[in-house]
């Protein structure tokens, strides 16, 4: 299926191969070349592929995205506060896919913690990454993952020594300056040693609206008993393409919590795959997608229970307005060895307009016999009875709708443990629903009382 839409990337790759980070290390070069070959064989996925059935990337494929050549300098004071830059965190800032050291106030070396740019690590000590970069079999998949591996330009490299606890969250802030037809190819690598503990926030924002592409992949290996809470806040520009993969491998008794929030972008795809590789691992996937206009947001999650006594919880909710469309595909595979698996999944969707659509598909595959599995999936509209009840108590129709939408989404936000992130998302939700906040709607009981 060679077609001009993707052959340009082959030519481009040959042209810049030697300048990509880590090119002096043979294994990095081989990894990239192999990925490029995979990409060239299949090109972009089309809707005949089951996993891409509801997400058509032809408009994306018509662009030729090129990496921005270097760092665009931006003034930190010009960054809106909504980027959470004021909150205490170990922060790495990336602009159009390049690490921006001058925007990274964090400099302190923490004992037992590596927190650096991936490009820097690949240039200076690639051997440290050989066992953990691109080793997840998901990354052998064609399409965007392959393209990511071939072109990955930068991202974060985080390594936690055994037993290390990070008190403040790590915040990876990816800013797009919003130039048409540019691509940021981001790769984050997180290696959490046994018993380590951290909260990691990835947030994606745009300073302008343009048809740019973010192609991002994060790999996480959670060692025995590690506890990692991961946030992905996607607030790309209205015309942006955002293709994201999150690949997690969990060792014995480790815990992984994901908060996956999709608010922006024209066409968004999230692949989140957690492999519970050893006994007693535990994961919680919490997700919220809000779509409007002509947005298309596709969340594909997959959890593999490979060994006994692992548990997984998945809570995804979506609110679709206007002519937008969402896709949820939640696959849980319980392998033959995975006795005493405890897996629960729910996906609830709220359609706000007659033109909005959602394709929701839970997929449970169970090959073990002693398991507890459940899933529930609903698609609904605002409850007319509840709307009338609120209005009969003097609350205007628009506010009544906001109450009900907020009520629908609130449990996802309540699970967010980092208070500034939770507040930020509550605000974003209000802006989306109302163009501003309704004083007192969120906040706790004391806030009301």
């Amino acid at each position: 299926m060679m077609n001009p839409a993707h052959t340009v990337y082959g030519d481009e790759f040959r042209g810049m191969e030697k300048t990509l980070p880590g090119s002096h290390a043979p294994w990095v070069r081989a990894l990239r070349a192999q990925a490029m070959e995979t990409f060239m064989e299949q090109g972009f996925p089309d809707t005949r592929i089951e996993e891409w059935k509801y997400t058509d990337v032809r408009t994306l494929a018509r662009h030729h995205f090129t990496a921005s050549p270097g760092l665009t300098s931006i003034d930190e004071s010009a960054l809106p506060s909504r980027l959470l830059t004021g909150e205490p965190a170990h922060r790495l800032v990336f602009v159009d896919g390049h690490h921006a050291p001058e925007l990274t106030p964090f400099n302190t070396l923490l004992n037992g913690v590596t927190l650096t740019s991936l490009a820097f690590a690949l240039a200076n000590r690639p051997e440290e990454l050989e066992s953990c970069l691109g080793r997840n079999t998901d990354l052998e998949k064609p399409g965007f993952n392959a393209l990511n591996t071939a072109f990955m330009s930068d991202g974060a490299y985080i390594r936690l020594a055994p037993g290390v606890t990070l008190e403040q969250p790590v915040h990876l802030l990816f800013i797009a300056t919003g130039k048409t037809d540019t691509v940021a190819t981001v790769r984050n690598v997180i290696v959490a040693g046994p018993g380590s503990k951290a909260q990691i926030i990835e947030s994606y924002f745009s300073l302008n609206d343009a048809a740019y592409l973010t192609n991002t992949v994060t790999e996480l290996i959670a060692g025995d008993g590690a506890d990692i809470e991961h946030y992905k806040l996607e607030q790309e520009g209205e015309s942006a393409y955002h293709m994201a993969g999150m690949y997690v491998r969990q060792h014995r008794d480790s815990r992984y919590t994901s908060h996956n929030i999709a608010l922006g972008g024209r066409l968004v795809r999230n692949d989140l795959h957690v492999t519970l590789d050893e006994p007693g691992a535990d994961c919680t996937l919490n997700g919220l997608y809000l779509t409007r206009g002509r947005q298309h947001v596709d969340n594909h999650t997959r959890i593999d229970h490979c060994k006994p006594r692992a548990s997984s919880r998945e809570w995804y909710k979506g609110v679709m307005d206007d002519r937008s469309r969402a896709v949820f595909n939640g696959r849980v595979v319980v392998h033959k060895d995975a006795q005493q698996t405890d897996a629960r999944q729910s996906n609830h969707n709220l359609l706000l307009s007659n033109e909005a659509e959602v394709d929701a598909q839970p997929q449970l595959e169970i090959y073990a016999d002693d398991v507890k599995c459940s899933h529930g999936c609903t698609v609904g509209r605002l409850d007319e009875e509840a709307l009338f009840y609120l209005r009969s108590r003097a609350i205007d129709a628009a506010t009544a709708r906001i109450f009900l939408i907020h009520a629908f989404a609130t449990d996802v936000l309540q699970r967010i443990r980092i208070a500034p992130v939770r507040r930020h998302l509550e605000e974003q939700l209000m802006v989306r629903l109302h163009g501003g906040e309704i004083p007192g709607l969120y906040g706790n009981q004391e806030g009301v009382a």
Partner: protein
Amino acid sequence: MLSIRNLHASVDGTPILRGIDLEVKAGEVHAIMGPNGSGKSTFANVLAGREQCRVTQGEVHFQGHDLLAMSPEDRARAGVFLAFQYPVEIPGVSNIYFLKAALNAIRKYHGLEELDAMDFISRVKSKVEMVKMDEALIYRAVNEGFSGGEKKRNEILQMMVLEPALAILDETDSGLDIDALKTVADGVNQLRSDDRAFIVVTHYQRLLNYILPDHVHVLSNGRIVKSGGPELALELEERGYVWLNELTAGAA
């Protein structure tokens, strides 16, 4: 205060109310009785502005407003309150916040300032005590998982906090134990004043022992087929509605 003339309404194309005339003056309590399915709730809902109940004919004036032209929220702001026969559960919306939003919307309509948090909470707490409701319920989601009786008390709590000019109670007494029944009656009696009126829909004379009505009406088949004083309720208690059917047949 409320003046209803020749009111007709249908639900999903089926005519339910078929010519209701009623005058309610400030200070009065009107009881409405009548068999199941006669249209009592439809009538109450039409007054509150439920869109599914389409008015096909007639006029309703409330304190000089053309009530039928108003949205449900404007009716509520102007002072109409409906205690629902089946209060709605609203998961995720806290009862206390809901109440605060309602009260402030009404105050705003009347050009009053929003109550501050302290004033609001002390006002709510005193009413909670009055309706003998478990205080924990005000922090829970609206009606979610409330027992039948708790839901009814919650309706009365809202009425007490919002202090409407016209309160319509749709079978608020149904399913209540005797103490709860007295609580409902106490609530009404406490609000009862020269500038307020009540329409109390009930199946039981018992409630009317505690809330003495000025007028009793019997609704049957979408019409008021008989009106009288408190003694009519007693008569109904004794004789049922069958004798009234003959009246309706005669009238039709």
